């Protein structure tokens, strides 16, 4: 019984004289090869040329600051809970008086580490975050010589304080989300 009509019945029949020369088959094969030499290439010359990434590419994470330069993360642990690869760990600490310009809330992440080798870049941490603190960016993770170097701490994850060096993540937020954040009782998310 045939499932499709494309199956070929294998036979042991004798080749004709032309077929036994193999030349037509060789030229037919070479024709395909030569056609691809002049065709559009599938690869690019990487360091000189770079591929364009999607605006919502999921690459290396960033820990955002708010408008006043305070860290948004409160070490609530929901990203670590949502993480299917268990790549995120954190240790929380209490904000001391006088540190109000550094941390947004009374609790902050003293240690925040993402193991970039474990991470599968699914973006669930971003969805889980109630404080709009963690986002995935277009930047890809740099290659390193040692596995230890892939455990990124706050020094690599938190974005710079300077306004012009901040990382823009508005493309990752849908218009609905941006509109929702303008509601008066969502002030804590602005």
């Amino acid at each position, binding site marked *: 019984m045939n499932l499709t009509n494309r199956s070929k019945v294998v036979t042991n029949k004798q080749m004709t004289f032309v077929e036994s020369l193999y030349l037509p088959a060789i030229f037919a094969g070479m024709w395909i090869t030569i056609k691809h030499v002049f065709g559009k290439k599938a690869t690019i010359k990487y360091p000189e040329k770079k591929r364009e990434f999607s605006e919502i590419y999921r690459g290396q994470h960033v820990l955002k600051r708010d408008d006043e330069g305070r860290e948004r993360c*409160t*070490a*609530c*642990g*929901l990203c*670590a*809970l949502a993480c299917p690869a*268990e790549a995120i760990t954190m240790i*929380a*600490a*209490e904000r001391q008086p006088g540190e109000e310009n550094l941390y947004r*809330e*009374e*609790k902050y992440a003293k240690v925040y580490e993402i193991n970039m080798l474990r991470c599968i870049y699914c973006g669930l941490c971003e969805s889980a975050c*109630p*404080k709009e603190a963690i986002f995935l960016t277009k930047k890809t993770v740099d290659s390193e010589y040692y596995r230890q170097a892939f455990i990124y701490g706050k020094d690599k994850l938190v974005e710079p304080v300077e306004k012009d060096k901040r990382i823009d993540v508005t493309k990752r937020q849908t218009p609905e989300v941006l509109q929702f954040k303008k*509601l*008066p*009782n969502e002030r*804590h998310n602005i």
Partner: protein
Amino acid sequence: MMLKVTIDGHTTEVEEGTTILQAARKIGGEIVPPAMCYYSKLKGSGGKCRTCLVKVSKGSEKDPRPMPKLVASCSTPVQDGMEVQNITSPEVLETRKAIVEFLLINHPLDCPICDQAGECDLQDLSFAHGADTSRFEEQKREFEQVDIGPNIKLHMNRCILCYRCVYTVNQITNGRIHGVLYRGDASEISTFIKNSIENDFSGNVIDVCPVGALTDSTFRFKSRVWFLKSMDVHRTCPKCSGKAVAWMSGNEIYRVTARKDEFNEVEEFICNECRFEKKDVNDWVIEGPRKIKRTSIISVNHYLNEKQGAIINPVDKKIEKPSEL
């Protein structure tokens, strides 16, 4: 004399003097009204939060007229032949939704910071019965944080004024040292002198608090409850039963709480020494992992033994016998 009562179509017989809430708890399941202020172990508690309101569609056998308004099931005694509607009544569900909104009016949205998150009654209640969004735009009331003694932290912002802690301190401990000051929307729980809670059982106010208003200072910001493994433990204690729950990660005990039953009520109150000072694993005899509901966030990312509902101990890969719940 046994009284017959029907709640959402389930009939049971209870003794005279039983409240509707207790009768519903006897039946069990999803027809049990939620309770934020009522605590079966505390005399006089209940009647304040209004989350347990139910509809009495038939007063009793003698007087079958329905009750004119919704009644608080925690403080209404059962009458013979009474018929009660809880989740089968749209009126009750709508009222409950409004009550959650009222409770949340002055409750800050700081669950990401709060140590109670994950085991909070108000969180569960608003998830089950509350609205998705808040309509409250005004400024919420704000208080300074207070250290009540060295081990208890009071966040008055989060308090819903259920009075459970006040009853606990009045009834479990001797002497009245903790109460409610001021009136109306200005009222706040407090000790009369800031650091006066020195009683051996004062730590139980942390366990009875349905929200994160009273939390354990020794556990403050140490971890989140869903990262910890809860184990039934006991020790010989001269002051209390010594039966407790240790919240552990590896061999480290992060905090100790009393054991709670299915209605989130403490089974046996434990003393402050067990709660705050015994954080070494050698102080305790470990009985086994606690049974945790599959719907609880505490069970997330843990392997569960489906039959027994116990978390499998990842250290020795052995299925341990769960405690009776």
